């Protein structure tokens, strides 16, 4: 039944977008984290989306869902802030701050939120269509 698969596909979309939202939250929360567990400054993370067959029609690549294939670290240079009194400042008095770009993250957040909403709407439509199908002939 094709309409039941809509839930699998839209569900994978919701899951992927919420993971993206999670990564954005982590980036924004750690925008000022000068040292992580390894003593190095926090590096911004990004999700990589990949189309993948989901549900009962695995192997059917005609109508794939989506998943987060990996989370990559941003390799752009760290932000240098002059603060000689900081305990982690180097000899020149600069502190390496995370390379999180707040503007990028906000854009990512809005995009993820809109995509999430679209997928939820798809599921609602499929649900109401299925309910009407169940009432067929009554």
């Amino acid at each position, binding site marked *: *039944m*094709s*309409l039941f*698969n*809509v839930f699998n*596909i*839209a569900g*994978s*979309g919701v899951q*992927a*977008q919420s993971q*993206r939202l999670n990564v954005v939250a982590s980036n924004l929360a750690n925008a000022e984290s000068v040292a992580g567990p390894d003593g190095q400054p926090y590096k911004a993370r990004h999700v*990589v*989306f*990949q*189309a993948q067959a989901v549900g009962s029609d695995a192997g059917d690549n*005609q*109508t*794939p*869902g*989506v998943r987060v294939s990996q989370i990559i670290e941003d390799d752009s240079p760290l932000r240098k802030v002059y603060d000689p009194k900081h305990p982690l400042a180097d000899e020149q008095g600069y502190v390496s701050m995370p390379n999180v770009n707040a503007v990028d993250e906000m854009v990512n957040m809005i*995009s993820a939120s809109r*995509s999430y909403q*679209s*997928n939820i709407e*798809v599921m609602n*439509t*499929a649900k109401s*269509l299925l309910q*009407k*199908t169940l009432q*067929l*002939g*009554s």
Partner: protein
Amino acid sequence: MLNQLDGILSYHGDALKLRAERQRVLAANIANADTPNYKAMDFDFRQALLNATAGPTLATSGNAALATTDSRHLSTSTLGLPGVDMQYRTPNQLSIDGNSVEMDTERAHFADNAVRYEASLRFLSGQIKTLTLAIQGQ
């Protein structure tokens, strides 16, 4: 008598199945709106319905086994849909990551398809009511 019933109901039944299939394809497009290099897909509903209703049906062939005179014909063991020819959508504006999903187009098609699904349901429901009336005769 049952053959005739099947003949009456099968046209809109096929239409309903194809609408559900198209709903699934459009859901996959919406779920993959942010996947790099994903290409939006769709199929020509008119052609698909012509293909689906062109073959000999249970009502006209007279026996329960389906005649397979074409490579696209189904065996009775599978529940797939015949004659669905998937095509890539030509985008109006290509995005730089190679994704050809245009959310507004997809949402419009999705809403349109949902309404047409309901229309098919109403037709089917009306036919069932007519038949019930004829059977009860009161």
